[in-house]
């Protein structure tokens, strides 16, 4: 009987080790040592039973499953966040090539790219949910939403009846994003990471319908912003910079670095947005200057507000363990 219990303890530790395989061997050992120490303390506690067998059985029963223990540790330390980043970087870099290839196969269907967009990015959203990684799921939801939003609001006549299908998908994805953000409402980093690009996408499309006009010459700031925008876009630096910023957001544990990354992400969204060129022709700004200026700084301002809010509030005790 004692042998069976010993095997059970050993099996538990081995099963836990498998759950912790995304941690480094040193981290695994430290976490497992603490659990071994817990089991030993229970076996030595006379209050747990009259003999070793009874005490061991009771302490094993109170451990909880190795899977939930492993999930709990993973939720705290996010040891596999490099994988999250790779699941963003690799598809992001490959997408333009896949898109060109797909369009070359089907030259008649100029709208085929949105189908490819959904076919590639939707599984990545599912992977993000399966991995319980809010940043991964939110990033890809945002990418699809920005495409679908343009289709359903700006180009609906081009897509005809298809628009209905894309609109339903858009609503479903927005609901999903809202759900993920709500689940992570106590982590302002994740909330802002989700809300900021989605908010800019939605307000951008609303603005395109209103577009306050201002037929005046470019000022210096307009020119500088336009140069930054064109430089990013034309030299394809945007992918490299974006992925570097996302690495800075996903990989470090230090929240100050992650907030800084989010500010840079916000600035990039502001500078990169097509608004800076869409309504500007020649040397004449057709969109009001204040819209341009606000557009560039608004995302960074949203991030800084979140950072200030986090700093000003006291630490919360009701953290949610292992949520998406």
């Amino acid at each position, binding site marked *: 009987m004692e042998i069976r219990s010993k095997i059970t303890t050993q099996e538990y530790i081995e099963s836990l080790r498998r759950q912790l395989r995304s941690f480094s061997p040193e981290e695994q050992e430290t*976490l497992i*040592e*603490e*659990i*071994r*120490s*817990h089991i*030993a*303390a*229970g076996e*030595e*506690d006379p*209050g747990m039973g009259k003999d070793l067998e009874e005490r061991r059985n009771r302490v094993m029963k*109170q*451990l*909880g*499953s190795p899977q*939930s*223990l492993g999930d*709990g*540790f993973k*939720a*705290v*330390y996010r040891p596999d966040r490099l994988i999250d980043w790779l699941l963003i970087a690799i598809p992001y870099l490959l997408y333009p090539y896949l898109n060109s290839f797909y369009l070359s196969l089907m030259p008649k269907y100029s709208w085929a790219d949105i189908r490819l967009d959904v076919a590639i990015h939707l599984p990545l959203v599912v992977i993000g949910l399966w991995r319980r990684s809010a940043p991964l799921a939110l990033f890809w939801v945002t990418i699809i939403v920005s495409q679908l939003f343009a289709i359903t609001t700006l180009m609906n006549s081009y897509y005809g009846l298809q628009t209905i299908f894309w609109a339903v998908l858009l609503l479903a994805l927005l609901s999903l994003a809202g759900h993920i953000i709500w689940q992570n409402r106590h982590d302002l980093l994740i909330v802002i990471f989700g809300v900021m690009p989605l908010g800019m996408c939605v307000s951008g499309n609303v603005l395109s319908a209103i577009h306050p006009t201002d037929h005046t010459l470019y000022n210096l700031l307009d020119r500088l912003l336009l140069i930054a925008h064109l430089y990013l876009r034309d030299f394809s630096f945007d992918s490299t910079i974006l992925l570097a910023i996302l690495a800075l957001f996903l990989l470090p*544990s230090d929240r100050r670095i992650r907030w800084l990354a989010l500010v840079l992400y916000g600035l990039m969204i502001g500078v990169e947005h097509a608004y800076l060129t869409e309504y500007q022709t020649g040397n004449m700004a057709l969109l009001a200057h204040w819209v341009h200026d606000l557009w560039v700084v608004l995302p960074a301002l949203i991030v800084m507000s979140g950072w200030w809010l986090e700093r000003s509030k*006291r*630490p*919360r*005790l*009701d*953290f949610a*363990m*292992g949520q998406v």
Partner: protein
Amino acid sequence: MTNLQQLRKGSTPLLILSILSTDKMYGYQIMRELERRSAGYFTMTAALLYPALHHLEKDGLLKSEWQAGPGRRRRKYYSITQKGRNALAASRTEWRTFIATLQKTLKPANGD
């Protein structure tokens, strides 16, 4: 998960900080102390306790150190930090208000 289970789970960090506010302890000791103080009402599995301890430590509310235990085994002792004490004090006030309001609301009206 029922509402009561959610409430219990939500109170985990508060219970841990409260137990550690008097003395430093290792994980198993915290679990047993919680059972003792609540007369067995609050029981916590290791799968809930240890991630919560690590989370609190990561947030700077607890600190830990390994110390020699019986035999060759080491034990990891947790103690509360000043940041943890501040958070505990604020959370205690919040919970007292919540419980008092709940009791007041649940109290049957005259004639019930």
